[in-house]
Protein backbone atom coordinates (compact mmCIF):
# COMPACT_ATOMS: atom_id res chain seq x y z
CA UNK A 1 0.00 0.00 0.00
CA UNK A 2 1.36 3.39 -0.98
CA UNK A 3 1.58 5.72 1.97
CA UNK A 4 1.79 9.48 1.84
CA UNK A 5 5.52 9.23 2.61
CA UNK A 6 6.10 6.87 -0.35
CA UNK A 7 4.13 9.22 -2.60
CA UNK A 8 6.21 12.21 -1.48
CA UNK A 9 9.44 10.27 -2.18
CA UNK A 10 8.24 9.31 -5.67
CA UNK A 11 7.31 12.90 -6.45
CA UNK A 12 10.74 14.02 -5.22
CA UNK A 13 12.52 11.43 -7.42
CA UNK A 14 10.37 12.42 -10.42
CA UNK A 15 11.12 16.09 -9.91
CA UNK A 16 14.87 15.43 -9.61
CA UNK A 17 14.82 13.40 -12.81
CA UNK A 18 12.83 16.10 -14.56
CA UNK A 19 15.52 18.62 -13.63
CA UNK A 20 18.19 16.38 -15.15
CA UNK A 21 16.15 15.89 -18.31
CA UNK A 22 15.37 19.59 -18.54
CA UNK A 23 19.08 20.33 -18.31
CA UNK A 24 19.73 17.99 -21.22
CA UNK A 25 17.63 20.31 -23.38
CA UNK A 26 20.10 23.08 -22.61
CA UNK A 27 22.53 23.30 -25.55
CA UNK A 28 25.69 21.26 -25.00
CA UNK A 29 29.11 22.23 -26.41
CA UNK A 30 29.86 21.19 -29.97
CA UNK A 31 31.99 18.15 -30.63
CA UNK A 32 35.15 18.36 -32.75
CA UNK A 33 33.41 16.52 -35.59
CA UNK A 34 30.52 18.98 -35.48
CA UNK A 35 32.94 21.92 -35.70
CA UNK A 36 34.83 20.33 -38.58
CA UNK A 37 31.59 19.44 -40.36
CA UNK A 38 29.99 22.88 -39.97
CA UNK A 39 28.81 24.20 -43.30
CA UNK A 40 30.84 27.07 -44.79
CA UNK A 41 28.73 29.07 -47.22
CA UNK A 42 30.36 31.68 -49.39
CA UNK A 43 27.38 34.05 -49.20
CA UNK A 44 26.82 33.81 -45.43
CA UNK A 45 30.00 32.59 -43.74
CA UNK A 46 32.04 35.39 -45.31
CA UNK A 47 30.83 38.73 -43.97
CA UNK A 48 29.60 41.27 -46.50
CA UNK A 49 31.54 44.56 -46.68
CA UNK A 50 28.37 46.24 -45.39
CA UNK A 51 28.57 44.15 -42.22
CA UNK A 52 32.23 45.09 -41.70
CA UNK A 53 31.53 48.79 -42.26
CA UNK A 54 28.49 48.74 -39.93
CA UNK A 55 30.79 47.44 -37.21
CA UNK A 56 33.41 50.11 -38.05
CA UNK A 57 30.72 52.79 -37.68
CA UNK A 58 29.93 51.53 -34.21
CA UNK A 59 33.59 51.65 -33.13
CA UNK A 60 34.78 54.91 -34.69
CA UNK A 61 33.62 57.78 -36.86
CA UNK A 62 35.17 57.04 -40.25
CA UNK A 63 35.44 59.74 -42.88
CA UNK A 64 34.09 57.56 -45.67
CA UNK A 65 34.43 60.28 -48.30
CA UNK A 66 38.22 60.04 -48.14
CA UNK A 67 38.02 56.30 -48.85
CA UNK A 68 36.21 56.61 -52.18
CA UNK A 69 38.54 55.46 -54.93
CA UNK A 70 36.60 56.25 -58.13
CA UNK A 71 37.90 52.98 -59.53
CA UNK A 72 36.98 51.85 -62.98
CA UNK A 73 37.04 48.34 -64.36
CA UNK A 74 40.21 47.33 -66.22
CA UNK A 75 40.35 46.41 -69.88
CA UNK A 76 40.97 42.69 -69.73
CA UNK A 77 39.61 39.42 -70.95
CA UNK A 78 40.98 37.41 -68.03
CA UNK A 79 37.93 35.92 -66.32
CA UNK A 80 39.80 35.45 -63.04
CA UNK A 81 40.77 39.10 -62.93
CA UNK A 82 37.21 40.11 -63.83
CA UNK A 83 35.83 37.97 -60.98
CA UNK A 84 38.23 39.73 -58.60
CA UNK A 85 37.17 43.11 -59.99
CA UNK A 86 33.49 42.38 -59.22
CA UNK A 87 34.41 41.87 -55.57
CA UNK A 88 36.46 45.06 -55.37
CA UNK A 89 33.72 47.09 -57.06
CA UNK A 90 31.05 45.68 -54.73
CA UNK A 91 33.11 46.74 -51.72
CA UNK A 92 33.65 50.17 -53.32
CA UNK A 93 29.90 50.49 -53.67
CA UNK A 94 29.43 49.94 -49.93
CA UNK A 95 32.03 52.62 -49.16
CA UNK A 96 30.21 55.04 -51.44
CA UNK A 97 26.92 54.24 -49.74
CA UNK A 98 28.52 54.96 -46.36
CA UNK A 99 29.85 58.22 -47.82
CA UNK A 100 26.34 59.02 -49.14
CA UNK A 101 27.75 59.63 -52.63
CA UNK A 102 24.91 58.69 -54.96
CA UNK A 103 26.68 59.63 -58.18
CA UNK A 104 29.68 57.48 -57.31
CA UNK A 105 27.40 54.51 -56.48
CA UNK A 106 25.81 54.92 -59.89
CA UNK A 107 29.24 54.92 -61.55
CA UNK A 108 30.28 51.81 -59.62
CA UNK A 109 26.98 50.11 -60.50
CA UNK A 110 27.66 50.76 -64.18
CA UNK A 111 31.17 49.33 -63.85
CA UNK A 112 29.84 46.22 -62.12
CA UNK A 113 27.33 45.59 -64.87
CA UNK A 114 29.94 46.07 -67.59
CA UNK A 115 32.25 43.59 -65.85
CA UNK A 116 29.33 41.17 -65.53
CA UNK A 117 28.73 41.53 -69.27
CA UNK A 118 32.37 40.76 -69.97
CA UNK A 119 31.98 37.66 -67.82
CA UNK A 120 28.78 36.80 -69.71
CA UNK A 121 26.81 36.70 -66.47
CA UNK A 122 24.79 39.87 -66.92
CA UNK A 123 21.45 38.69 -68.27
CA UNK A 124 19.65 38.95 -64.93
CA UNK A 125 21.41 42.14 -63.91
CA UNK A 126 19.74 44.85 -65.95
CA UNK A 127 16.89 45.15 -63.45
CA UNK A 128 19.42 45.33 -60.62
CA UNK A 129 21.30 48.09 -62.41
CA UNK A 130 18.13 50.10 -62.87
CA UNK A 131 17.28 49.67 -59.18
CA UNK A 132 20.77 50.86 -58.20
CA UNK A 133 20.30 53.99 -60.30
CA UNK A 134 16.85 54.65 -58.87
CA UNK A 135 17.89 54.16 -55.25
CA UNK A 136 20.94 56.38 -55.78
CA UNK A 137 18.73 59.10 -57.30
CA UNK A 138 16.41 58.90 -54.31
CA UNK A 139 19.25 58.62 -51.79
CA UNK A 140 17.72 55.42 -50.41
CA UNK A 141 20.98 54.35 -48.79
CA UNK A 142 19.80 51.21 -46.98
CA UNK A 143 18.07 49.96 -50.12
CA UNK A 144 21.22 50.75 -52.10
CA UNK A 145 23.36 48.67 -49.76
CA UNK A 146 20.87 45.78 -50.04
CA UNK A 147 20.85 46.10 -53.81
CA UNK A 148 24.65 46.08 -53.99
CA UNK A 149 24.79 42.80 -52.06
CA UNK A 150 22.00 41.40 -54.24
CA UNK A 151 23.85 42.45 -57.41
CA UNK A 152 27.08 40.82 -56.22
CA UNK A 153 25.17 37.64 -55.32
CA UNK A 154 23.35 37.66 -58.66
CA UNK A 155 26.73 37.67 -60.41
CA UNK A 156 27.95 34.84 -58.14
CA UNK A 157 24.78 32.77 -58.68
CA UNK A 158 25.11 33.12 -62.43
CA UNK A 159 28.77 32.07 -62.17
CA UNK A 160 27.59 28.92 -60.36
CA UNK A 161 24.93 28.27 -63.02
CA UNK A 162 27.64 28.59 -65.68
CA UNK A 163 29.83 26.04 -63.89
CA UNK A 164 32.19 28.84 -62.85
CA UNK A 165 31.81 28.23 -59.11
CA UNK A 166 35.54 28.77 -58.60
CA UNK A 167 35.21 32.37 -59.72
CA UNK A 168 32.81 32.98 -56.81
CA UNK A 169 35.65 32.30 -54.38
CA UNK A 170 37.72 34.99 -56.11
CA UNK A 171 34.91 37.55 -55.96
CA UNK A 172 34.33 36.97 -52.23
CA UNK A 173 38.02 37.09 -51.38
CA UNK A 174 38.53 40.30 -53.39
CA UNK A 175 35.53 41.99 -51.71
CA UNK A 176 36.97 41.12 -48.32
CA UNK A 177 40.42 42.37 -49.38
CA UNK A 178 39.03 45.76 -50.45
CA UNK A 179 37.04 45.91 -47.22
CA UNK A 180 40.24 45.22 -45.30
CA UNK A 181 42.05 47.92 -47.28
CA UNK A 182 39.39 50.48 -46.27
CA UNK A 183 39.01 49.26 -42.69
CA UNK A 184 42.76 49.34 -41.99
CA UNK A 185 42.89 52.90 -43.36
CA UNK A 186 40.15 53.87 -40.88
CA UNK A 187 41.89 52.16 -37.97
CA UNK A 188 45.25 53.78 -38.76
CA UNK A 189 43.63 57.22 -38.73
CA UNK A 190 43.05 57.01 -34.98
CA UNK A 191 45.81 57.20 -32.32
CA UNK A 192 44.39 54.25 -30.36
CA UNK A 193 43.57 52.16 -33.43
CA UNK A 194 39.81 52.37 -32.83
CA UNK A 195 37.97 49.53 -34.53
CA UNK A 196 40.96 47.19 -34.58
CA UNK A 197 38.81 44.45 -33.02
CA UNK A 198 36.62 44.50 -36.12
CA UNK A 199 39.45 43.62 -38.49
CA UNK A 200 41.22 41.14 -36.24
CA UNK A 201 39.92 38.10 -38.13
CA UNK A 202 42.92 35.83 -38.79
CA UNK A 203 40.71 32.74 -39.06
CA UNK A 204 38.70 34.30 -41.87
CA UNK A 205 41.86 35.27 -43.74
CA UNK A 206 43.19 31.73 -43.35
CA UNK A 207 39.88 30.26 -44.43
CA UNK A 208 39.82 32.37 -47.59
CA UNK A 209 43.43 31.44 -48.35
CA UNK A 210 42.57 27.78 -47.84
CA UNK A 211 39.65 28.14 -50.26
CA UNK A 212 41.96 29.64 -52.88
CA UNK A 213 44.22 26.65 -52.37
CA UNK A 214 41.42 24.33 -53.48
CA UNK A 215 41.07 26.07 -56.86
CA UNK A 216 42.06 24.17 -60.01
CA UNK A 217 45.77 24.27 -60.88
CA UNK A 218 45.20 26.46 -63.95
CA UNK A 219 43.66 29.14 -61.71
CA UNK A 220 46.31 28.89 -59.03
CA UNK A 221 48.91 29.65 -61.70
CA UNK A 222 47.40 33.10 -62.17
CA UNK A 223 49.72 35.77 -60.79
CA UNK A 224 46.83 37.66 -59.21
CA UNK A 225 45.32 34.57 -57.60
CA UNK A 226 48.65 33.41 -56.16
CA UNK A 227 49.37 36.95 -54.89
CA UNK A 228 45.93 37.06 -53.30
CA UNK A 229 46.55 33.76 -51.52
CA UNK A 230 49.96 34.91 -50.28
CA UNK A 231 48.52 38.24 -49.12
CA UNK A 232 45.72 36.52 -47.19
CA UNK A 233 48.22 34.22 -45.49
CA UNK A 234 50.42 37.20 -44.64
CA UNK A 235 47.39 39.08 -43.27
CA UNK A 236 46.47 36.11 -41.08
CA UNK A 237 50.00 35.90 -39.70
CA UNK A 238 50.23 39.66 -39.05
CA UNK A 239 46.87 39.64 -37.26
CA UNK A 240 47.91 36.68 -35.11
CA UNK A 241 51.24 38.17 -34.09
CA UNK A 242 50.51 41.85 -33.57
CA UNK A 243 50.43 41.91 -29.78
CA UNK A 244 47.94 43.74 -27.63
CA UNK A 245 49.08 47.38 -27.49
CA UNK A 246 48.64 50.06 -30.17
CA UNK A 247 52.44 50.40 -30.33
CA UNK A 248 52.94 46.77 -31.34
CA UNK A 249 49.77 46.59 -33.43
CA UNK A 250 50.27 49.69 -35.58
CA UNK A 251 53.21 48.37 -37.69
CA UNK A 252 51.31 45.17 -38.49
CA UNK A 253 48.11 47.03 -39.40
CA UNK A 254 50.20 49.36 -41.55
CA UNK A 255 51.72 46.38 -43.39
CA UNK A 256 48.29 44.83 -43.91
CA UNK A 257 47.01 48.13 -45.29
CA UNK A 258 49.93 48.52 -47.69
CA UNK A 259 49.68 44.92 -48.89
CA UNK A 260 45.90 44.98 -49.40
CA UNK A 261 45.91 48.41 -51.08
CA UNK A 262 48.69 47.34 -53.46
CA UNK A 263 46.86 44.19 -54.49
CA UNK A 264 43.55 46.02 -54.97
CA UNK A 265 45.38 48.44 -57.26
CA UNK A 266 46.84 45.54 -59.20
CA UNK A 267 43.45 43.85 -59.55
CA UNK A 268 42.06 47.03 -61.09
CA UNK A 269 45.03 47.56 -63.43
CA UNK A 270 44.46 47.13 -67.16
CA UNK A 271 47.50 44.96 -67.62
CA UNK A 272 46.49 41.59 -68.93
CA UNK A 273 50.16 40.66 -69.10
CA UNK A 274 50.21 40.35 -65.31
CA UNK A 275 48.12 37.21 -65.46
CA UNK A 276 48.80 33.97 -67.24
CA UNK A 277 46.57 33.03 -70.17
CA UNK A 278 45.09 30.27 -68.00
CA UNK A 279 41.76 32.08 -67.73
CA UNK A 280 39.23 31.48 -70.46
CA UNK A 281 39.08 34.29 -72.98
CA UNK A 282 35.80 36.12 -73.29
CA UNK A 283 34.40 37.56 -76.50
CA UNK A 284 33.66 40.94 -74.92
CA UNK A 285 36.55 42.43 -72.96
CA UNK A 286 35.27 45.01 -70.53
CA UNK A 287 35.75 48.66 -71.52
CA UNK A 288 36.08 51.26 -68.85
CA UNK A 289 32.87 53.13 -68.33
CA UNK A 290 30.90 51.03 -70.80
CA UNK A 291 27.37 50.40 -69.69
CA UNK A 292 23.97 49.56 -71.02
CA UNK A 293 22.12 50.49 -67.87
CA UNK A 294 19.04 52.45 -68.66
CA UNK A 295 18.63 55.77 -66.95
CA UNK A 296 16.02 55.80 -64.21
CA UNK A 297 12.65 57.10 -65.16
CA UNK A 298 12.08 60.68 -64.09
Amino acid at each position, binding site marked *: MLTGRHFAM*LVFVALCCHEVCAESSVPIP*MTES*QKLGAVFLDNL*SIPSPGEVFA*AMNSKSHPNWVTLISSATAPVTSDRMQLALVVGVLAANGYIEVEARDGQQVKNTGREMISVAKALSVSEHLMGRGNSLMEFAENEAWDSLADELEATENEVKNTMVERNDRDLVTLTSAAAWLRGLDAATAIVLETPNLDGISVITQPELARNLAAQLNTLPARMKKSVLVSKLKLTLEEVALLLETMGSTPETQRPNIQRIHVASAALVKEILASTGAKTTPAGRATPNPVRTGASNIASPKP
Partner: protein
Amino acid sequence: MMNLRLLPYLSVFLLTSMVASGIDQNRETLPPTNPSHPVPTEARRLALESAGAFTNEGFRIRDAEWAFTLNKGTKAFLQVTLFAGNHYWFVTASPNPGAKLRVTLYDRIGNPLKTQQWQEMGEHGGSRAAAGIAPERSGRYFVGVEILDAPNDLPLDCSLVIAYK
Protein backbone atom coordinates in the same frame (compact mmCIF):
# COMPACT_ATOMS: atom_id res chain seq x y z
CA MET B 1 -9.88 10.98 -7.29
CA MET B 2 -6.95 8.98 -8.64
CA ASN B 3 -6.39 5.60 -7.11
CA LEU B 4 -3.16 5.82 -5.08
CA ARG B 5 -2.21 2.27 -6.10
CA LEU B 6 -1.71 3.50 -9.68
CA LEU B 7 0.80 6.15 -8.66
CA PRO B 8 3.94 3.90 -8.61
CA TYR B 9 3.19 2.70 -12.18
CA LEU B 10 2.50 6.25 -13.30
CA SER B 11 5.76 7.45 -11.80
CA VAL B 12 7.74 4.64 -13.43
CA PHE B 13 6.14 5.48 -16.80
CA LEU B 14 6.91 9.16 -16.26
CA LEU B 15 10.55 8.48 -15.38
CA THR B 16 11.05 6.12 -18.33
CA SER B 17 9.60 8.54 -20.87
CA MET B 18 11.62 11.48 -19.51
CA VAL B 19 14.89 9.54 -19.55
CA ALA B 20 14.15 8.30 -23.08
CA SER B 21 13.47 11.84 -24.24
CA GLY B 22 16.73 12.98 -22.65
CA ILE B 23 18.69 10.29 -24.47
CA ASP B 24 17.01 11.29 -27.73
CA GLN B 25 18.01 14.90 -27.26
CA ASN B 26 21.60 13.99 -26.52
CA ARG B 27 22.00 11.84 -29.61
CA GLU B 28 24.57 13.46 -31.87
CA THR B 29 25.06 12.91 -35.54
CA LEU B 30 27.16 14.63 -38.14
CA PRO B 31 25.66 17.85 -39.53
CA PRO B 32 24.71 18.02 -43.19
CA THR B 33 27.57 19.27 -45.32
CA ASN B 34 25.83 19.78 -48.61
CA PRO B 35 25.46 23.51 -49.20
CA SER B 36 24.13 22.95 -52.71
CA HIS B 37 20.87 21.48 -51.41
CA PRO B 38 17.87 22.62 -53.48
CA VAL B 39 16.36 25.82 -52.16
CA PRO B 40 13.18 25.21 -50.16
CA THR B 41 11.38 28.31 -51.33
CA GLU B 42 8.56 28.20 -48.79
CA ALA B 43 11.02 27.78 -45.92
CA ARG B 44 12.97 30.79 -47.16
CA ARG B 45 9.80 32.84 -47.56
CA LEU B 46 8.82 32.09 -43.96
CA ALA B 47 12.32 32.86 -42.68
CA LEU B 48 12.40 36.16 -44.55
CA GLU B 49 8.89 36.98 -43.34
CA SER B 50 10.00 36.48 -39.74
CA ALA B 51 13.28 38.35 -40.23
CA GLY B 52 11.36 41.18 -41.89
CA ALA B 53 10.06 42.17 -38.47
CA PHE B 54 13.60 43.11 -37.48
CA THR B 55 14.03 45.50 -40.41
CA ASN B 56 11.65 47.88 -38.62
CA GLU B 57 14.31 48.11 -35.93
CA GLY B 58 17.05 48.99 -38.40
CA PHE B 59 18.30 45.47 -39.12
CA ARG B 60 19.48 44.62 -42.61
CA ILE B 61 18.93 41.09 -43.95
CA ARG B 62 21.82 39.39 -45.75
CA ASP B 63 20.89 38.53 -49.32
CA ALA B 64 21.53 34.82 -48.89
CA GLU B 65 20.12 31.81 -47.12
CA TRP B 66 21.29 28.54 -45.68
CA ALA B 67 18.97 25.81 -47.00
CA PHE B 68 19.16 22.46 -45.26
CA THR B 69 17.19 19.40 -44.21
CA LEU B 70 16.92 18.62 -40.54
CA ASN B 71 16.02 15.31 -38.92
CA LYS B 72 14.70 14.93 -35.41
CA GLY B 73 17.60 14.26 -33.05
CA THR B 74 20.21 15.83 -35.31
CA LYS B 75 21.76 19.28 -35.35
CA ALA B 76 22.94 21.32 -38.31
CA PHE B 77 25.77 23.83 -37.99
CA LEU B 78 26.86 26.83 -40.04
CA GLN B 79 30.12 28.73 -39.65
CA VAL B 80 29.81 32.52 -39.50
CA THR B 81 32.03 35.53 -38.82
CA LEU B 82 30.51 38.08 -36.45
CA PHE B 83 31.69 41.54 -35.44
CA ALA B 84 31.71 43.12 -32.02
CA GLY B 85 29.60 46.26 -32.20
CA ASN B 86 26.99 44.66 -34.48
CA HIS B 87 23.74 43.06 -33.35
CA TYR B 88 22.61 39.88 -35.14
CA TRP B 89 19.45 37.79 -35.45
CA PHE B 90 19.61 34.29 -36.92
CA VAL B 91 16.15 33.30 -38.13
CA THR B 92 15.18 29.79 -39.22
CA ALA B 93 11.88 28.47 -40.53
CA SER B 94 10.30 25.33 -41.92
CA PRO B 95 6.97 25.00 -43.74
CA ASN B 96 6.01 22.06 -41.48
CA PRO B 97 3.82 23.35 -38.65
CA GLY B 98 3.99 22.08 -35.08
CA ALA B 99 7.76 21.57 -34.91
CA LYS B 100 9.67 23.27 -32.13
CA LEU B 101 12.95 24.54 -33.59
CA ARG B 102 15.84 26.04 -31.69
CA VAL B 103 18.70 28.23 -32.91
CA THR B 104 21.86 28.22 -30.78
CA LEU B 105 25.00 30.33 -31.12
CA TYR B 106 28.37 28.80 -30.26
CA ASP B 107 31.70 30.55 -29.82
CA ARG B 108 34.81 29.62 -31.81
CA ILE B 109 35.61 26.68 -29.55
CA GLY B 110 32.06 25.38 -29.65
CA ASN B 111 30.63 26.51 -26.33
CA PRO B 112 26.97 27.57 -26.43
CA LEU B 113 26.32 31.27 -25.83
CA LYS B 114 23.48 33.03 -24.08
CA THR B 115 21.19 34.54 -26.71
CA GLN B 116 17.81 36.18 -27.04
CA GLN B 117 15.41 33.42 -28.07
CA TRP B 118 12.21 33.46 -30.10
CA GLN B 119 10.09 30.51 -31.21
CA GLU B 120 6.80 29.99 -32.99
CA MET B 121 5.21 26.60 -33.71
CA GLY B 122 2.69 27.30 -36.41
CA GLU B 123 0.53 30.16 -35.19
CA HIS B 124 1.28 32.04 -38.44
CA GLY B 125 2.18 29.13 -40.71
CA GLY B 126 5.18 26.82 -40.51
CA SER B 127 7.60 26.56 -37.62
CA ARG B 128 10.03 29.32 -36.86
CA ALA B 129 12.75 30.15 -34.35
CA ALA B 130 15.40 32.82 -33.95
CA ALA B 131 18.36 33.69 -31.77
CA GLY B 132 19.72 37.19 -31.27
CA ILE B 133 23.16 38.22 -30.08
CA ALA B 134 25.42 41.27 -29.85
CA PRO B 135 28.83 39.54 -29.68
CA GLU B 136 31.47 40.99 -27.40
CA ARG B 137 34.29 39.74 -29.61
CA SER B 138 34.73 39.68 -33.36
CA GLY B 139 35.58 36.33 -34.86
CA ARG B 140 34.38 32.91 -35.87
CA TYR B 141 31.14 31.57 -34.43
CA PHE B 142 28.82 28.66 -35.21
CA VAL B 143 25.05 28.70 -35.63
CA GLY B 144 23.31 25.46 -34.67
CA VAL B 145 19.73 24.50 -35.54
CA GLU B 146 17.85 21.56 -34.06
CA ILE B 147 14.33 20.19 -33.64
CA LEU B 148 13.33 20.13 -29.99
CA ASP B 149 9.92 18.62 -30.65
CA ALA B 150 7.94 17.60 -33.72
CA PRO B 151 4.61 15.89 -34.36
CA ASN B 152 6.34 13.18 -36.45
CA ASP B 153 9.80 11.96 -37.46
CA LEU B 154 9.72 13.28 -41.02
CA PRO B 155 12.73 15.40 -42.03
CA LEU B 156 12.12 19.15 -42.20
CA ASP B 157 13.16 21.46 -45.03
CA CYS B 158 14.57 24.51 -43.28
CA SER B 159 16.03 27.86 -44.24
CA LEU B 160 18.13 30.24 -42.15
CA VAL B 161 18.66 33.91 -42.86
CA ILE B 162 20.79 36.46 -41.03
CA ALA B 163 19.86 40.01 -40.05
CA TYR B 164 22.36 42.51 -38.67
CA LYS B 165 22.67 46.14 -37.66
